[in-house]
C-alpha cells in the first residue's frame, strides 16, 4: 500500500488529472441521483403536505344523512376544520381583514361572530348533537398499532381567549399530540419548538402559538419563555409554528396558524375530560390510504362494540376526498366532481401521486445512467494512465523485480495505485457532488436529496472501477520479464 501511494506521489500531475477525471464522474453521478431523489421527495412531500395520506377520524357521525347530496362536504364541520391547508371559504378571511381594518378587533363586539373560526365553531356546535364524545385516547393508542399507519395524533378543539398582559386574542385551541408536526410536514418553528413527549405525559401547561396568534399577542417579539393565560391558567410559550409551504401562508382565521397548540393531556387534566374530538392519522404510503381507512373503521367498530346493522359512531374521512370536495374549486366544478366522487375516488390524487413517483424514479434512473457514462469515461481514463505508467515505469518494475518483488507484488502495487486513484477521485467527487447539489438547491431552488446509500454506492463504484480498470494494466506489469524491463530505455 505504502509503495503504491509513494509511486503516485512521484507523478503528481498525472495523478491529479486522473483523480479529477474520476472525481467528475462520481460527482456527476451523485448530483444526478441527488436531483432525481430530490424531485421524488419533493413530489412526495407536496402530496403529503397536501394531505394525500391524511385520514381523520371524527367523533360522531354526520354522514348518515349527507352522503347523497353535495351538501355532504359542507355539513361536515369538523372535517372542514381539519382541512388546514386551504382557507375555508374565499370570503371569510377577507371579511375578517376588512373588519379589522376598520376597527380594532378587540373592540369590535361583532368580532366573535365575524371571526371565521367563530363561524366554524358555530357550525360545529350546530352539529353538536352528532358529535357524541365517542373517541378516546385508548382508541388512538390502538390505531397506532395498525400496520401501514405512520403517525397518529389525538385532537381536542376549543375556542379560546389567549391573554398576555393587556393583549387578548380570540382564537382556536388544539389539544394534540407531540406527533402533530410530523403530520403537518410543512411546519417550521420560527422560534422554539413543539411541546415534548415529557411535557405531554406530565400534562404540563405549555403552549405552542401559531404564527398569526403569536403576532397578534406578542407582535414581532420572540414569545418563547413568556407566559400567556388560557382559561385563566398560566401557560409557558415553548414555540411558534409557521410554514414553509408556498401553497399556504398563515392568515387570520386559518385554524392552523391562527391557533394555539397544547398537549391533549393538559386539556384533559384542566377541563376534566377523557374523550377526543378527533384522531388524525397519516398512512405511511399514499397508495395505502384506502386500506388503512378500512382497517381503522374495522378496529373502531370492534372497540366501540357496534353491531353489524348499526351505523358507525364516528366518521372516517380522507384529506383527498375532502380536497376534491372543496379544495378551493369553483363551486360548479366541485359540485360536478363530488357528484361523481364514488367513481373518481379510484383514480384520485393517490394514483396521481403514484404516477408522479414512478415518473421521477424513471427520471432519476435516466439521469444516473447519463452520469454513469462519465464514470465509465473516468474509469477508462484510469486504465489509460495505468497502461501508460506500466510502459513508462518498465524500468522501475525491473528494479523492483531484481530486488525481490514477486510478480504478484508488482500486480498488487498497480491495482492498489488504480484503486487509490479512483477512491481519491471518488471522495473528491462526493465532496464536489455534495457542494453541487447544495448549490443547485440554493440557486435554482431544485430540491436535492443525498442519501448515505448514494454516497456509499459512489465510493463502492469508484473502488470497483479502480479494480476493474486497474486489473489489466496490473497484469501487464506483473507479466513483464525482469531482464527485459531492466534493459528498457
Amino acid at each position, binding site marked *: 500500500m505504502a509503495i503504491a501511494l509513494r509511486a503516485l506521489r512521484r507523478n503528481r500531475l498525472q495523478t491529479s488529472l486522473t483523480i479529477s477525471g474520476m472525481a467528475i464522474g462520481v460527482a456527476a453521478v451523485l448530483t444526478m441521483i441527488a436531483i432525481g431523489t430530490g424531485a421524488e421527495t419533493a413530489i412526495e412531500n407536496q402530496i403529503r403536505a397536501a394531505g394525500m395520506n391524511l385520514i381523520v377520524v371524527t367523533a360522531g357521525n354526520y354522514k348518515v344523512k349527507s352522503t347523497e347530496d353535495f351538501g355532504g362536504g359542507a355539513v361536515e364541520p369538523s372535517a372542514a376544520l381539519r382541512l388546514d391547508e386551504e382557507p375555508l371559504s374565499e370570503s371569510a378571511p377577507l371579511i375578517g381583514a376588512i373588519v379589522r381594518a376598520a376597527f380594532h378587533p378587540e373592540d369590535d363586539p361583532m368580532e366573535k361572530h365575524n371571526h371565521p373560526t367563530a363561524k366554524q365553531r358555530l357550525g360545529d356546535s350546530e352539529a353538536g348533537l352528532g358529535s357524541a364524545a365517542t373517541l378516546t385516547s385508548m382508541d388512538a393508542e390502538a390505531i397506532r398499532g395498525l400496520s401501514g399507519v405512520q403517525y397518529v395524533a389525538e385532537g381536542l378543539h376549543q375556542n379560546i381567549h389567549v391573554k398576555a398582559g393587556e393583549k387578548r386574542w380570540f382564537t382556536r385551541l388544539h389539544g394534540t399530540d407531540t406527533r402533530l408536526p410530523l403530520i403537518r410536514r410543512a411546519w417550521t418553528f420560527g422560534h422554539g419548538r413543539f411541546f415534548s413527549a415529557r411535557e405531554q405525559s406530565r400534562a404540563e401547561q405549555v403552549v405552542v402559538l401559531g404564527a398569526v396568534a403569536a403576532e397578534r399577542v406578542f407582535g414581532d417579539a420572540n414569545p418563547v419563555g413568556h407566559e400567556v393565560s388560557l382559561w385563566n391558567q398560566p401557560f409557558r410559550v415553548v414555540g411558534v409554528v409557521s410554514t414553509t409551504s408556498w401553497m399556504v401562508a398563515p392568515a387570520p382565521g386559518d385554524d392552523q396558524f391562527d391557533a394555539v397548540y397544547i398537549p391533549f393531556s393538559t386539556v384533559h387534566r384542566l377541563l376534566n375530560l377523557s374523550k377526543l374530538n378527533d384522531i388524525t392519522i397519516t398512512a405511511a404510503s399514499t397508495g395505502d390510504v384506502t386500506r388503512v381507512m378500512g382497517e381503522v373503521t374495522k378496529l373502531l367498530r370492534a372497540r366501540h362494540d357496534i353491531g353489524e346493522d348499526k351505523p358507525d359512531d364516528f366518521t372516517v374521512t380522507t384529506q383527498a376526498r375532502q380536497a376534491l370536495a372543496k379544495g378551493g374549486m369553483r363551486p360548479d366544478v366541485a359540485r360536478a366532481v363530488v357528484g361523481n366522487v364514488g367513481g373518481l375516488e379510484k383514480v384520485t390524487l393517490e394514483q396521481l401521486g403514484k404516477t408522479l413517483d414512478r415518473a421521477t424514479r424513471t427520471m432519476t434512473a435516466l439521469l444516473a445512467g447519463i452520469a454513469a457514462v462519465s464514470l465509465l469515461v473516468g474509469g477508462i481514463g484510469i486504465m489509460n494512465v495505468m497502461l501508460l505508467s506500466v510502459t513508462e515505469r518498465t524500468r522501475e518494475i525491473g528494479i523492483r523485480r531484481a530486488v*525481490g518483488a514477486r510478480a504478484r507484488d508488482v500486480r498488487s502495487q498497480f491495482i492498489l495505485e488504480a484503486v487509490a486513484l479512483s477512491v481519491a477521485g471518488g471522495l473528491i467527487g462526493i465532496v464536489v457532488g455534495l457542494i453541487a447539489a447544495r448549490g443547485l438547491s440554493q440557486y435554482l431552488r431544485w430540491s436535492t436529496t443525498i442519501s448515505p446509500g448514494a454516497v456509499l454506492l459512489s465510493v463502492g463504484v469508484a473502488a470497483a472501477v479502480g479494480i476493474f480498470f486497474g486489473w489489466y494494466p496490473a497484469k501487464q506489469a506483473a507479466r513483464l520479464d525482469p531482464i527485459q524491463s531492466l534493459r528498457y530505455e
Partner: protein
Amino acid sequence: MSTGEPALIAAQEITKTYAMEGAPVHALRGVTLGIRGGEFVAVVGPSGSGKSTFMHILGCLDRPTSGRYLLNGRDVSHLSDDELSTIRNRQIGFVFQGFNLLARTSAVENVELPLLYAHGSHITPAERRRRAMAALAAVGLQDRAAHHPNQLSGGQQQRVAIARALLNDPAILFADEPTGNLDSRTSIEVMDIFQRLKDERGITIVLITHEPQVAEYGSRIIRFKDGRVVSDLPNTFRRAAAAELEAVALEPAGDL
C-alpha cells in the same frame, strides 16, 4: 571444484537458447563452473559472448534452458518465479551499469526497497529506515539520504545502488558493468568498495565487464566467447584499488 569445500555457485552444463524471430539464438552453449564463497570473480568477454545471460541465470533473474544450477547446494534451475524472487531478495544483490535507482525517490527510500519485499520478516518502517541509513553510512552517503538520484553524481548513485544491494546481507553481489558509466577515478572507488566487501565481509562478488583493466581487480578472471568459457584463471596480478586511490590523491588534481 578442485577443493573439497562445496561451491556456493555450481553451474553444470548450462545452456540458454532464445527464440528470436523464429531463429534460435544460442546465448550459452554449455557452461560448467563453480564459484566458492568469498571469491571476487571477474567475467570478461566481448558483447554477445553470453556473459550477461550467464549472470542473469546465476542471479536468478532468468532460468537456464538446460543444465543445472546449484546455489548453495540447492538446485534452483526449476524454481517458480515467486521462489526465485525470494532468493533474489534474500541471497543476492545487484549493481547495474545504469545504477537503476528509482527516479524521484530519495536515496534512503531507494536503499529501503529490498526490505519492502522481504515477506515474512516483520520489519517496522522505523527499523527499515534505520537499516537503510546504516547501509548508506557504510558507503559514506549518510548526509545524502534525502537527495534524489538526479541530485547525485554518478559515483554517488552507484554507491546508493551498492547500499541497496547489500541491505539484506546477501551472500553474493552481482555487478553488471558497474563502472561503464563512471570516470576512471570513481571506477576505482567502486572497485575499492568491492574489494573491501570481499576482504572484510567475505561477500562473493561476480563482476561482469568488458574492460580488461577493471577485471584485474578480481581474484579470478573468467573469459567468455560465443556462449562458452574460454579461460578461467586465478588473477595473480590483482590490482589494489585502495593503493591506487592513494596514488591518485597524490597526483595534482588538475586532470580531475
